[in-house]
């Protein structure tokens, strides 16, 4: 009986979504007038290369036009990481218990073959380099801080599941994460106190498609990249260290 009610509910949701999107033609131009912007999309497409000299207009929106929103997003990610750590945290009172719990951790079920171990060792620095490249070039190419941070975390994941004794330094990770987050806020406050608006662009914007262009955008995306990379690595580390019990 419950099943039929749920199917009817799903059908109602599907029907209402379908009728709503029937009225929105796919592929139609809804950006408004690009030369005299009357809609927000046209405004962003016009201002991103002209005023901000930022090639990737999505980065311009995420970091500059909606920078405050991104600060909130980073906070949500931070809260999720903190919540996860506090939900899965387990207090270990004395050293003996700590040693015992280290033995219990079954992060790697089977020892990796030498092929995997050697390959991981070669790939790890290259993956980190790719991640750093992606967030440094966030304002020029597709990508940015969040994507680059995720790539860095995959590199650490590779090492964590390949080597039994690979440990990330928890303190360094937490400090890096906190400092990157604080730096983002500090940049925002600097703009607020010196130029009168939070996250105000305080640098010259340079020329389009230069590595150093777009004012504060590359700087902020580097902070976000470091923060997301360390945060995701911490989450993976915590999830992989769960005891079997």
């Amino acid at each position, binding site marked *: 009986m419950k*099943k039929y009610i*749920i199917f009817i*509910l*799903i059908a109602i*949701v*599907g029907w209402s*979504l*379908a009728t709503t*999107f029937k009225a*929105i*033609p*796919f*592929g*139609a*131009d*809804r*950006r408004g007038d*690009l030369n005299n912007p009357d809609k*927000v*999309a046209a405004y*962003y*497409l*016009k201002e*991103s*290369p002209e005023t901000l000299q*930022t*090639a*990737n*207009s*999505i980065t311009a*929106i*995420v970091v500059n036009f*909606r920078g405050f*929103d*991104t600060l909130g*997003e980073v906070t*949500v*990610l931070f*809260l*999720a*990481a903190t*919540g*996860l750590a506090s*939900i*899965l945290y387990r207090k270990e009172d004395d050293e003996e218990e700590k040693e015992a719990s280290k033995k219990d951790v079954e992060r790697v079920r089977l020892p990796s073959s030498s092929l995997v171990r050697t390959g991981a060792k070669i790939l790890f620095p290259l993956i980190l380099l790719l991640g750093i490249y992606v967030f440094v070039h966030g304002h*020029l*190419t*597709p990508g*940015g801080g*969040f994507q680059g941070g995720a790539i860095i975390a995959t590199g650490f994941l590779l090492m964590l599941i390949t080597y039994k004794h690979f440990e990330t330094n928890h303190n360094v990770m937490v400090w890096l994460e906190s400092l990157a987050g604080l730096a983002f806020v500090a940049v925002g406050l600097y703009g607020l106190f010196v130029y009168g608006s939070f996250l105000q662009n305080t640098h010259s914007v340079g020329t*389009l*498609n230069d590595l150093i262009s777009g004012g504060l955008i590359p700087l902020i995306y580097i902070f976000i990249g470091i923060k*997301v990379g360390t945060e995701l690595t911490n*989450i993976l580390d915590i*999830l992989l260290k*769960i005891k079997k*019990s």
Partner: protein
Amino acid sequence: MTEFNDLFIKYKDLITIAVYGTAIMLILIGLYAVLLKKHLVKIVIGLSIIDAGVHLLFVAVGYIQNGTAPIFSPGNEHAAGRMVDPVPQALVLTAIVIGFAVTALALSLVIRLYKHHHTANIDQIKSLKW
């Protein structure tokens, strides 16, 4: 490119149904998993599927015919007329990160529940009954 345009105009209804239909079907499949599945991990997977459907819907709404990515790379500095709407893409970028955070938090709660009750079946977890 003109060939693509002709095809797009010719099969416009079909493409519309395919794109919006896929996105809406993903949302409905996720909703089905959330409402009817008994295993907690499957419910979390359902939430992720709903996420994917919503993202696809957003990006599909922002698409314009024959559009390119809104990136002013060298040679495309004055191609703003061909670029798709950047706003939904920026919103989806935010939504993916939030979706990841929600999934991670939900999975940690599932792990906690499993450790406490020694089962991940919601029918056997009595304290969750309503």
